[in-house]
């Protein structure tokens, strides 16, 4: 009977491939907020990438004759405390801020997710050890931890990124652990056991792909936090070091010239705000788009 059904089945038409992300992408594209967020992020990324080819003065080019000059045709965003073009420094600073955001989150994800998956998968004492470790890290205030680490490693952008990455790691351990545990209770994991799927394959094919969406959302939102954290560290003098610009270090300087040169504080603050807003909007949009409950 079934053979017969198979035998006379109509020649199947090749269906166009539709990856799972498609639906999420479509939903994302329908959300104006997420689109705006994506646009903001893209704008800053493009600007940062194009920095070397844009017709702007070098970020370290000084003009002793134009110290702390208000925005003008020559210097659209004004000049800074030693006569550098603020627009140029903003554009080059975008590199530092975005890099700091992305790299530190990559560090946090690469360290945190395996640990979290391990804890959630292995349970028992492995979980206990990792969980206590995570709790202890979480209980140490983020900024203090980052300050201490940045101070330990020496003030530089790279070290700030490491410090922020390490500080953000527990978020991902927790999330990955919780998500892993929740995935493991899913029927399809039991189904994998029934079929005889091994541990590694289970983690690789079942756990990781299924915890990916919440991790992605969290990563996007953490990039936003990390950018602020980098700015905070730079603001305390522990991030990007001069003469290389970053928005946080520009603010660090600018706070000394609030009255004489408010534009020096205005632009970097605005830029941080906008790019962080962009990531937050994007993260929110992603969360909504990837939420399976809301189809």
């Amino acid at each position, binding site marked *: *009977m079934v053979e017969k059904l198979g035998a006379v089945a109509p020649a*199947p038409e090749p269906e166009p491939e*539709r990856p799972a992300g498609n639906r999420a992408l479509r939903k994302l594209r329908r959300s104006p907020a997420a689109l705006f967020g994506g646009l903001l992020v893209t704008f800053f990324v493009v600007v940062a990438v194009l920095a070397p080819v844009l017709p702007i003065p070098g970020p370290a080019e000084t003009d002793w004759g134009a110290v702390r000059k208000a925005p003008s045709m020559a210097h659209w965003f004004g000049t800074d405390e030693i006569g550098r073009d603020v627009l140029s420094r903003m554009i080059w600073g975008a590199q530092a801020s975005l890099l700091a955001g992305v790299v530190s989150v990559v560090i946090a994800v690469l360290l945190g997710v395996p640990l979290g998956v391990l804890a959630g998968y292995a349970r028992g004492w492995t979980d206990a050890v990792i969980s206590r470790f995570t709790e202890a890290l979480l209980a140490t205030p983020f900024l203090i931890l980052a300050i201490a680490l940045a101070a330990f490693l020496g003030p530089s952008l790279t070290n700030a990124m490491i410090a922020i990455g390490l500080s953000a790691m527990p978020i991902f351990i927790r999330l990955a652990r919780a998500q892993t545990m929740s995935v493991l209770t899913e*029927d*399809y994991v*039991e189904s994998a056991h029934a079929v005889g799927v091994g541990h590694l394959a289970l983690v690789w094919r079942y756990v990781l792909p299924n915890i990916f969406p919440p991790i992605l959302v969290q990563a996007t939102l953490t990039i936003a936090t990390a950018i602020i954290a980098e700015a905070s560290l730079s603001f305390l003098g522990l991030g990007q070091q001069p003469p290389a610009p970053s928005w946080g270090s520009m603010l660090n300087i600018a706070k000394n010239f609030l009255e004489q040169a408010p534009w020096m504080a205005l632009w970097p603050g605005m830029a941080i705000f906008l790019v962080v807003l962009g990531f937050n909007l994007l993260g929110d949009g992603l969360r909504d788009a990837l939420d399976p409950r809301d189809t």
Partner: protein
Amino acid sequence: MTEGVILETRGLGRAFTGRKPLLGPATVVQAVKDVDLEVRRGETLAIVGESGCGKSTLARVLVRLLAPTVGTVFYEGRDIAKLGGAELRSLRRELQFIFQDPFSSLNPRMTVGALIGEPLKVHGLGNAAARRAKVARLLTRVGLRTGDAARYPHEFSGGQRQRIGIARALASGPKVLVGDEPVSALDVSIQAQVVNILQDLKAEFGLTLIIIAHDLAVIRHMADRVAVMYLGQVVELAPVADLFANPRHPYTEALIASIPLPVVGGRRAQVPLAGDLPDPTDPPKGCRFHTRCPYAIGRCARQVPKLADPWATHQVACHRTDELALTGLTTVAVGRSPEAVARFEMYRAAAAERAGSTGLEISTEE
């Protein structure tokens, strides 16, 4: 081991221990207790009972998705708890499981092809091309298109997903298929399609089916034998027609009597059982059913009835079974006019013809 028995349990029990409080002992639920069961090669055995009776746990213990806390499961004479390595892998190949919820039991991140091909891959059966061919064959067999292999589970309806689950279970060439409420999440019309497929496949592959269900109509339709469970224990085990016609355990009688029948003015469902299921962490002493049993006597509260004569065709665990005359379900006749009967026949014929003309009983969505 008895000839013809493929799966057998002896004194099987499975307990779940809750988190231990700081003071006092942890709560323990005996989800399955003292189950002795033989499953015969080629039969369809149904395990029936209400929620919390332990039937799903029993199903999982049977295929080693859960380890028993006491007792043994023998598959073809071998204790499955003692299997390792190649033997365990072959057990996994031969004992397969179908899940209740077709929405949550398929990994949403894998294509249908990958899902169905996974058991083959895991067990190293065939190369990639052979696996692809096998997946295509399985898909058509459960009434889906070969092109569906590239799609993801969420693109399918519930019935279609259950077919995917069945194809996946069949991929490794199992001998025993355990279905945990395989059709209860489906609408009636879709349920019928899946029931038909399961029956066809069973016949074609010579499978042994163990179906967990609470829907007595489906069980009546599919099963050869039925085991009725109450609070973790099998209280009655009998061939299906015998069980429905002549239940010998009061609980079975109550279950059957509770079924609302689709007949207007027919028998009204009875309310033979008062009260709720007792707290499973503190089950009644003696016969676990005695607190709700309309026929209970003093002895029932003290003495645990044994499932008498494990080799008989109709087994029952009740002290009073011989004294009671219990009511079963007699034939159910819908009072339809001849025109109506003819209409039903016409429908049957037209539906069959239509299935034949398209080559498919089921057309895919959209």
